[in-house]
């Protein structure tokens, strides 16, 4: 069974600094997708970034980038130049072509002014 683990229940960072959120997963599949979703207090889940397992290059979206280590089954999210609007719950998620999407328990990120 696929599992997703986020070992940091809460994190905080000063505005304009960089923070890294950790995620590990367990799967026997060779091809799959990984995602980071952001959920602000409004509850709307917003896709931050996605990574396809067969691509070695780490995905990047503006201030957000990932460090995808397939052998270690690790998928961390780096947020650069943190902004107050980045304050939210962040969920790591995994999906393969014969399984439903699995989410981690989430990391609550607080950006401090």
């Amino acid at each position, binding site marked *: 069974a696929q599992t997703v683990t986020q070992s940091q229940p809460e994190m905080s960072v000063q505005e304009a600094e960089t923070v890294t959120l950790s995620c590990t997963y367990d799967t026997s599949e060779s091809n799959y997708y990984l995602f980071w979703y952001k959920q602000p207090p409004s*509850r709307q889940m917003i896709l931050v970034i996605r990574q396809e397992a067969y691509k070695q290059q780490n995905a990047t979206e503006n201030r957000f980038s990932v460090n995808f280590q397939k052998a270690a089954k690790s998928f961390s999210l780096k947020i650069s130049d943190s902004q107050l609007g980045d304050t939210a719950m962040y969920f790591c998620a995994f999906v393969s072509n014969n399984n439903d999407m699995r989410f*981690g*328990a989430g990391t609550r990120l607080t950006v401090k002014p």
Partner: protein
Amino acid sequence: EAGVAQSPRYKIIEKRQSVAFWCNPISGHATLYWYQQILGQGPKLLIQFQNNGVVDDSQLPKDRFSAERLKGVDSTLKIQPAKLEDSAVYLCASSPSDWSEQYFGPGTRLTVT
């Protein structure tokens, strides 16, 4: 492009009462998902539709929960009768295919008293 719509946004009911939630996915998205998100946890899949057929309902408590997606577009999720432990946010999501990124609605917060 309009996003995933859900209603109501909030609902408070007493235990043993019935409740229904509605979801309208993004136009053209064949796959629709209902998730239950208990406070402090990641979303848990309840049911997945591909067009108007059920792909996965293995985690749906079928003795009290039911869902349908008539005509392969809108969907309703019903709980009858509700229990205290059903208090959660119910999220609807849609995607173009069954293993690409999902687009989430704003969710319905259910409180069972």
